[in-house]
């Protein structure tokens, strides 16, 4: 029974991420378009909403190219390894007050640890592509994702300390409004580190279009390429939802459907902000990125943790 339920949850998560990616891509194109004095998609449907519906079949039917010299099995299945952990991480998001698809007592640890497996998929796909640019992109991705795990974890820890639990439903249950000013820095660090984790601009070095063409997935086409895109958008959705739940209390505001709508709405605003940053700032350089991580974000997260810890002890 629980197996069946798990299967249903899995399907729902994939559906959520796929649907979210479709809407996210459309929305990103609209946002980027407006920032750049353009209209974005406009031909299909009102404001071009059906553009992505046309793009999905296009991606499905595109030729699945495996480059000459690539390690075929690895090349083929590496995208799954990127996508699956990110899809899995959605399981612990507390959508409803007191309810998450997988209401684990170590949910926070699950959320922070499981997506990190994706870095293996990126490295594998980069290596399997038999392409120097991809390899460099994969190496960058590994270095970046491993490094940014640290500030991200530290930032989340401040909330964990305050709530005294690793279970996301419990954290949202324990949430109080004054956590927001108290953990503001932590939330910022969490957001920045999450953006770096999901390889989005201005931290999109692994796929740096102007340097590495598309980095680790430069040689992918068709639907395998789309899986990478879905992984990116999935990770953005998961990070926004999870961050909103932990730092802003998400589903704890209102009970019932209203709570869910408000929660998802705020997450969408955060997603938009992430997109906005991508289209506003230039890309950083690898060494600057690392310096930023270790000399700015990590100390900030540590300070946040200390403050949160002090408050927790004082309480």
């Amino acid at each position, binding site marked *: 029974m629980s197996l069946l339920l798990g299967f249903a949850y899995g399907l729902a998560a994939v559906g959520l991420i796929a649907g979210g990616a479709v809407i996210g891509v459309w929305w990103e194109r609209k946002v980027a378009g407006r920032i750049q004095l353009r209209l974005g998609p406009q031909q299909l449907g009102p404001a071009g909403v059906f553009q992505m519906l046309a793009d999905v079949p296009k991606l499905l039917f595109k030729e699945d190219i495996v480059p000459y010299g690539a390690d075929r099995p690895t090349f083929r299945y590496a995208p799954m390894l990127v996508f699956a952990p990110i899809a899995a991480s959605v399981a612990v998001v507390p959508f409803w007050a007191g309810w998450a698809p997988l209401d684990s007592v170590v949910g926070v640890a699950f959320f922070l640890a499981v997506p990190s497996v994706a870095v293996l998929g990126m490295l594998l796909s980069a290596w399997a592509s038999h392409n120097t*640019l991809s390899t460099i992109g994969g190496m960058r991705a590994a270095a970046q994702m491993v490094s940014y795990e640290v500030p991200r974890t530290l930032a989340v820890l401040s909330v964990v300390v305050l709530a005294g639990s690793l279970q996301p439903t419990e954290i949202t249950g324990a949430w109080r409004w004054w956590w927001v000013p108290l953990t503001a820095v932590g939330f910022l660090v969490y957001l920045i580190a999450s953006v770096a984790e999901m390889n989005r601009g201005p931290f999109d070095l692994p796929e740096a*279009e*102007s340097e590495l063409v598309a980095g680790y997935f430069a040689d992918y086409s068709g639907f395998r390429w789309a899986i990478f895109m879905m992984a990116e958008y999935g990770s953005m959705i998961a990070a926004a939802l999870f961050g909103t739940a932990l730092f802003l209390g998400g589903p704890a505001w209102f009970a019932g459907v209203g709570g869910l709508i408000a929660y998802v709405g705020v997450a969408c605003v955060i997603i938009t902000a992430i997109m906005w940053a991508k*289209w506003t700032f230039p*890309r*950083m350089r*690898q060494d600057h990125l690392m310096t930023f991580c270790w000399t700015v974000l990590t100390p900030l997260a540590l300070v946040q943790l200390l403050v949160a810890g002090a408050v927790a002890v004082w309480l």
Partner: protein
Amino acid sequence: MSERLVVNIGPSHPSTHGVCRIVVELDGEIVTHAEPIIGHLHRGIEKMAENRTYLQIVPLTDRLDYVGSMYANWAYCRAVERLAGIRVPERAEYIRVIVCELQRIASHMMGIGSAAADTGAFTVFMYAFEQRELVVDLFEALCGSRLTYNYVRPGGVSADLPDGWVDRCRTFIKGHPDAMREIDRMLFGNVIFRARTKGIGVLDAADAVAWGASGPVARGSGVDYDLRRDDPYSMYPRFDFTVPLGERGDSYDRARVRLWECVESCRIVEQALDQLAEYEPGVIMTEGLPRLLAPGRGDAYDHIESARGCLGVYLVSDGGVCPYRMKVRSPAFSNLALLPLLATGHTLSDLIVVLGSLDPVFGEVDR
């Protein structure tokens, strides 16, 4: 000693500004050697010119620097005029100055925009392109073409300014400096962009001169040299303008020199439009030019300050209707030769930034 990785950037790559192949030797992310392999866009324009009449070469010169076609048109026409002893009406000279300064804006917008896109600031690229579009719209109204203008001709220009063009042009040059300020704040003031470009690819003034660099590349290094002022041609002695200079010769200075040159170009266009009003419309071509020019035997070299630097054309005539030899001294070619010097020791990401700050156009490099 770590293993060296040889990476092949290009010939088809988003950031090579055309079709250039750069063979980069990497130590980790550090470039230990970079060699541009050019010639992918070599169309043999110099050879083709030997088989075309003097007028038919003008469309060919459009294809040299396809971001700044007016310059190649003008440099070529100046060489032809010097060879054939043609005096150009002053109105035509003014129009040439105006279109070429507008072209400088259009070309620098491409340069700044692609330098921004190279660092990932794609939005600035679009802002710059909006300005370029405005210039290109002006050119379209003027000569009916948006990229390859074929406008400056031996003896003058092909068409007079259409009705209302001067007003449109004034509107543009009035709004352009504000747009430049916006780009300056958004891109050149940005902390990430400064970190990406400052101290990257430093070219000192002595090297710039020795390597024959010209244009914004040399001026970014503080080489105070601008043909418009130092070897004045056409109507430039009649205008008041300053030549912006950089101090450090890094990628930032090279890119920002372009931005201020655009502001200066606006000033020149404004003065030129004022002075143009005194000339009778319609006198845009030297009278009595034969349909097929056939200058006497001899050779002539003339150059202008294009958006990329000193663009010269050397023509040799044997008295026929086709030139015996045409050589284009392209600034981008000389500037690109600096890439190995500038990029070595920086990271791969910086190589792209350095290449972007040199702003080569491969139609002109490869000819």
